[in-house]
């Protein structure tokens, strides 16, 4: 197992290097200039050129990228052109926010999506099934920026229970922290709940048709035990895969939700950086996102082994 983990981690290094190289090269191909963004709309070409020189952007792309990799080897992700801080610091500020938001959203997704899918599968074509499928369809198809605005108007303005936006760090005020996460995590989770409920339902239906389930029932085991003990564990393999992908999507930044609710997470950091051509932040942010996804995949693979005794990573 240890060897497997080590092998996977080592294999990730070239992947991450290629990701940063591609990200940096694509940003070079996109026209636009961070100096022009800093200088502002009214700045003349000469003023923009001056900013470019002061930021060192007049040097060649290869030189700048080389410098960035040298810094990376020392664990330095560079300095943001816009944020007046190092990229490492900017990312460290955002990671807890995104983790909290995606964590709560994932919790909602799993707590609602899996039971809803199981319930629907146990009574196929009943009203429960229809209800779950309809709700899942709505969750998947309602645009989440629209849903967010409706939730803000309802819970932030009309009944006035929750804040309309913004983020309060946990250390500052745990209650406000929780309150500030309610609406964004619901908005974020709805799509994932719909997806997960549908996957769980489909997988469960398939598993329930298997011979071993029929055998267990024939042996006289109560239906509840068959579902909870035999079927559910087998349903979990594809479901864990989907949860892994969902969490990856949630983590890599929910640009829309973070923008609508003014939450300073990774998604907004990257989106703002892309629009203002803040190259070091884009490269550093994508590196961290890619690394997170690689780790997450590893965790999912390890979970397979935990869930299914047939899966093993030790070499025989």
């Amino acid at each position, binding site marked *: 197992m240890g060897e497997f983990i080590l092998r996977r981690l080592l294999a990730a290094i070239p992947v991450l290097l290629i990701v940063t190289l591609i990200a940096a090269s694509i940003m070079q191909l996109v026209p636009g200039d961070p100096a022009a963004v800093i200088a502002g709309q009214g700045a003349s070409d000469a003023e923009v050129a001056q*900013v470019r020189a002061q930021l060192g952007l007049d040097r060649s792309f290869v030189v700048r990228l080389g410098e960035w990799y040298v810094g990376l080897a020392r664990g330095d992700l560079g300095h943001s052109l816009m944020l007046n801080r190092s990229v490492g610091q900017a990312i460290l500020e955002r990671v807890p926010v995104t983790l909290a938001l995606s964590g709560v959203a994932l919790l909602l997704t799993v707590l609602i999506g899996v039971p809803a899918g199981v319930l629907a599968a146990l009574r196929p074509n009943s009203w429960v099934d229809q209800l779950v499928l309809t709700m899942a369809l709505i969750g998947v198809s309602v645009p989440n920026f629209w849903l967010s605005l409706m939730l803000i108007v309802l819970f*932030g303005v009309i009944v006035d229970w929750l804040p309309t*936006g913004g983020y309060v760090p946990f250390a500052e005020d745990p209650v406000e922290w929780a309150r500030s996460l309610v609406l964004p995590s619901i908005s974020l989770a709805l799509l994932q709940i719909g997806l997960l409920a549908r996957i769980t339902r489909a997988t469960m239906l398939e598993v329930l048709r298997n011979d071993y389930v029929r055998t267990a029932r024939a042996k006289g085991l109560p239906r509840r035990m068959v579902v909870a003990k035999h079927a559910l564990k087998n349903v979990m393999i594809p479901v864990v895969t989907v949860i892994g992908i969902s969490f990856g999507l949630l983590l890599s930044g929910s640009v829309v939700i973070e923008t609508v609710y003014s939450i300073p997470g990774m998604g907004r950091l990257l989106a703002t950086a892309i629009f203002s051509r803040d190259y070091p932040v884009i490269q550093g942010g994508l590196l961290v996102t890619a690394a997170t996804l690689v780790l997450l995949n590893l965790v999912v693979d390890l979970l397979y082994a935990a869930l299914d005794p047939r899966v093993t990573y030790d070499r025989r």
Partner: protein
Amino acid sequence: MNRGMRRIAATAATALAVLAMAAAPAAAQKRGGTIVFAQEAPPPTLDPYFSTSVSTRNVAMNIFETLVTRDENNGLIKELAQDYSVSADGLTYTFALRRGVKFHNGKEMTSADVKASYERYKRMALPKVTLAPVDAFEAPDPYTFVIRLKQKVPVFLEEISAFVSPIAILPAEQADRDGGKIDIIGTGPFEFVEWVADSHLKLKKFDGYKPDDRYKGTDGFAGRKEVLVDMVDIRLVKEPGTRVAGLESGQLHIVEDVPTESAKRLAGRKDIVLYDLKNWWLHGAWVNHARKPTDNLKVRRAMQIALDMEAIMDISSDGAYTLQPGIQYPGNPYYVTDGKELYNVNDPKKAQALLKEAGYKGEEFVIITNSSYQSMYKAAQVVAEQLKAVGFKVRIDVFDWATAMARRKNQDGWNLWFTGQGTGPSVGPFTAMKDVVTPQLNQFVADPTLDKLFADMISGETMEARKASFGQFQARIYDQVHFLKFGDFQRKQATRANVKGYTPYRIPRFWNVSLEN
């Protein structure tokens, strides 16, 4: 004390209390609390020398101050300068500094700080050309600052008081810092606390601030600034719907930009006050004189007279606009209407005839606009339809702002490039229209007559002479179609009803503003 005495004493006490209340109206204003202000865009930097953007100024102008600045009508006003004088030959400017002005680090501001700040500005500020004519800065004593010029610049005071990238006075120790690398320490009424990117900025009342008693109240960037709140929390809220919801629920106190449609809905509410910020933004487009078909003046004229500015402005501003031909705002010292006969002509038939006369053969007419500023995007759509209607073959290229900026330099890539100017026109004609004269030349082809008029405008000895040159300059812009002006935007701002003393201006001013319960 007998009963009579007691009654007299009670009456006297009541009278005293009434007198005290009448004598101190300021004391009636509530003090304390945190103003929560919602701003759309994050500032790219807080170094006032290093950006021309509104989002930087919104914050920085509450923290920093300058020697001279602009009043409510964009005229000149003294701030950190107690007084100034100009020598008879126009080469020496002597500033007497206000005494007892403290920086946020507790140090007193002296001429050494002013000299160091001006030196830094001359070395690295974006508009450092402003100080190019300077021969020497001198600090003969702690409260006197002298600027010696190499040649006479009649508009020098106007230029150093311009606030696009203001010459804020910083502590002398920061003179060697590069752009964007300063500590945020000024002499203004608010001191910097924190900046959490994409979330918020916090400012707090600077206890060492002494209001300038030469003035009575708020006046442009200067005036008597009294801080009536403890903190200002500047939230970065990009989504307009969220800003309005925050205002409605009372979680935000001041919103700098309310969509017109939302403003209509909020109009009847007692707990919200709406403001019109007129002369906010001048809307227009640069015209390329190097690329076909707009290299031909007749084609440019046809385009100019084809346009219906009312339709363009109505759609792009959602109804919050004024139509006027000037490239300065009405009320500004330099406001003129020369060239107005070519503004908003809206004569498609004549335009069609002119296009035919010009020998237009259906060459592609390329419009560049951007999706970052919705008003520019919408205006481009309307202009494109109006031009198609008179026979132009139009293509619209939509980019994000940074890409559009990069594309502007490609003279083969466009005919009309959509833009807007907010601050430039309020500072004066030199800033607003430097882009169409050598060396900037957004239209790519120099117009020697226009360059000459610009030089006259700067070197005119008197205000009258300069204004007369500017009139001719503006007429020339219309005559040669160097720039297409559509109209002026108004901005809708709103506060909660318990915010008192707020007056809309080019930046949100948090001084003299109080929060009632």
